[in-house]
């Protein structure tokens, strides 16, 4: 089991552009959560997907959206990128009562 895999590992985008990040959960996990980790900070919850629906959302604007596919993989989309969106984006997968397993993250730089 490869665990949680995220792609790409690094990404550079220009302000105003759109970006899509991808996540494959750990085998057997049906819940995917996304986190944003700014430099020097702990991860911040963006949203969680379960059964292809957004089940919970943190304090992030609508520019952040997501999707979950029937195979439980997930995407995070960010529109109209701002310089402040530069961060490490983490995907975590879990079952209902099992702790979250994290991917290596995607480092997004907005210039």
């Amino acid at each position: 089991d490869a665990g949680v895999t995220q792609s790409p590992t690094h990404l550079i985008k220009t302000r105003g552009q759109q970006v899509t990040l991808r996540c494959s959960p750990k085998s057997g996990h049906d819940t995917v959560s996304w986190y944003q980790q700014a430099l020097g900070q702990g991860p911040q919850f963006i949203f969680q997907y379960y059964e292809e629906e957004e089940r919970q959302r943190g304090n992030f604007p609508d520019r952040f959206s997501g999707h979950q596919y029937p195979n439980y993989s997930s995407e995070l989309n960010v529109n109209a990128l701002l310089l402040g969106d530069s961060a490490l984006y983490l995907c975590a997968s879990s079952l209902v009562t099992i702790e979250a397993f994290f991917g290596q993250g995607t480092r997004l730089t907005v210039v």
Partner: protein
Amino acid sequence: AQRVTQPEKLLSVFKGAPVELKCNYSYSGSPELFWYVQYSRQRLQLLLRHISRESIKGFTADLNKGETSFHLKKPFAQEEDSAMYYCALSGLRGSARQLTFGSGTQLTVLP
């Protein structure tokens, strides 16, 4: 609202000395508390959770509901313990559990 506070950004101890990483939380309900660790160039991984009450790599943490604390302790630090440590709280909102992280403590164990 749920909040996790880790008052020390940096902590240095000598090998063999005891170490305590502090964590305080705020949550109106019954939280689940976790400690996650991130070694250099590795993904965030679970170290321990308060429900299991187990000791991992010599680390223990006791949930003190009166003081709303979940401090991480190890009696004899090892150089391989040097890493970034995050305290996290899992609270139930609706049907979803989301993790709220502290800002982390960088532990350095000196030879």
